[in-house]
């Protein structure tokens, strides 16, 4: 039994990680590690970077093909896709956000890890709307690239 089935929190070793070069280019990471009957991420990608053997298989992102556009982030019903892009000493995390109020561009917000623990502050770089889901890009210290997965406004 993996721990996430007990805690609801996955560990980095559950994921297929991108290389540093791929992170600098920016990639979508699907934190979807259970075989559930779901596939809208596959159809949402304009460059067909996400594939799946059948509807119950795990999504696989071709990190080289992904152009970090963020389309899949707003489509995923599990809110389980994040785009991570490393830029100098900062990491830009693009995440789905379904709470009000929406943060404003330039605002400083608390950033949280997968357990909801505050990891400090981040700066809102971009706020997009995809349907009723907000797609937020927040800038954090590079060392938190694989930790920060939520914000608190």
């Amino acid at each position, binding site marked *: *039994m993996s721990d*996430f*089935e*007990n*805690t*609801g*929190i*996955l560990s980095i070793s559950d994921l297929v990680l991108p290389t540093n070069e791929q992170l600098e280019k920016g990639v979508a990471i699907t*934190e*979807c*590690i*259970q*075989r*559930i*009957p*779901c*596939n*809208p991420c596959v*159809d*949402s990608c304009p460059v067909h970077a996400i594939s799946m053997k*059948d*509807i*119950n298989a795990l999504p696989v992102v071709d990190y080289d093909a992904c152009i970090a556009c963020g389309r899949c982030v707003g*489509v*995923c*019903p*599990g*809110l*389980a896709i994040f785009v991570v892009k490393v830029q100098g000493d900062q990491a830009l995390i693009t995440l789905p956000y*379904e*709470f009000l109020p929406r943060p404003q561009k330039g605002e400083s917000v608390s950033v*949280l*890890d*997968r*357990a*909801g*623990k505050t990891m400090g502050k981040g700066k809102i770089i971009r706020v997009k709307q995809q*349907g*009723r*889901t907000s797609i937020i890009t927040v800038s954090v210290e590079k060392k938190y690239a694989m930790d920060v*997965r*939520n914000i608190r406004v």
Partner: protein
Amino acid sequence: MEVNGIPNVRTCIAPLLEGVAVRMQDRLASWPQNNTDNAFVSTVQDIDILIVGAGPAGMEAALQAATFGASVLLVDENQRVGGQLIKQTHKFFGSKEEKAGTRGISIAKDLEDQLCDDRFKDKIDVLLDATVFGFYEDDTEDRYTFGVISRKEYKSRLIKVVCRSVIFTVGAMENMLLFPGNDLPGVYGAGAVQTLMNVYGVKPGERVLMVGAGNVGLIVGYQLLQAGIKVDRVVEAAPTIGGYHVHAAKLRRCSVPIYTRHSIKEVFGADCVKGAVVVELDDHWNPIQGSEEIVTCDTVCLAVGLTPSTRLLEQIGVDMALVPEAGGYIALHDERMQTSVPRVYVAGDSSGIEEASTAMIEGKIAGAMAAKQLGYQQEKAQTAYEGFLKELKRLRAGPFGAKPRDAKQRIQRLWRKRP
């Protein structure tokens, strides 16, 4: 219970009106007599297919049946169509065919628009705010008779529906847990919490203890957060989280803890919930002495499973069986969703607890097959049916499909073993 002379009413969801007369019912219902509060107008409607329940299964059944040319009366006791979907503010799973990535409420709207489409104008009749309350024996051959009570404009109207075929897409009822204090105001089923929040826009409370970490508990927990309500924790008696990891992860990253191997022991408060006692369970699901912890909350939300609604099916006398994987007693049915009584069909949660995606396909199957049986476009209906079967199989192929897969297999086995 009998309300204003109408038998078989679920009083918990009946509108409370001045002077309403509620009586215990200790026998099979007889045809209601005229009574003083309500001017009964008996009408008879003769149609091909009566569909009871306008959730995703019922709406799809209506659309299919009408596509092949059958005339349909779709009845629901709610004031709008959609069933459970109108409470689902989250995006749905599944594939494009079942509109994955779309919010449940938008799927309901989409199906509603299709029902209203001009091409079904003469085929589909939708009757809302109306309950199908009973099945009546009738002498007419090849016809079934049902009693329907319509509550439009606060005037009850009795309608006698005569149909050639009937599809039950009546959904499910929430399970309750036994513990001291479970009758205090503030203890809700998850479905009730969702209705209050997402349909009526009313906050059920300020601080919630969620019981059950299946998908329903996890999703409703998240929707509570979205409504600005604090979720203290989720407790789950099983050793692992039953719902999808992605749903659990959403709660966790909002700082909501999930305690597996934990259950609720009691709820306390004088006239409403003031708090609850939760307790850890051992390997045999027994409470561990001394592990009790007090949770301060004003609301306890129970998300501990659903039981298929089958009362009307039982009344008709279809063959029933206990199928735990399906959520309780269900009407045995074949792959076409027909029960042991000819031209009586069942689909969706009422035929075994599952998902809206599969409920929609089962509804399509029942609709197409009922129309075919009545002689409408037999070949086309058969081709459509075969496609739907494949789609069902595909959706149930994964590990989370195991339970419904087992349920349906057991139902098939029991079906074949019938005398």
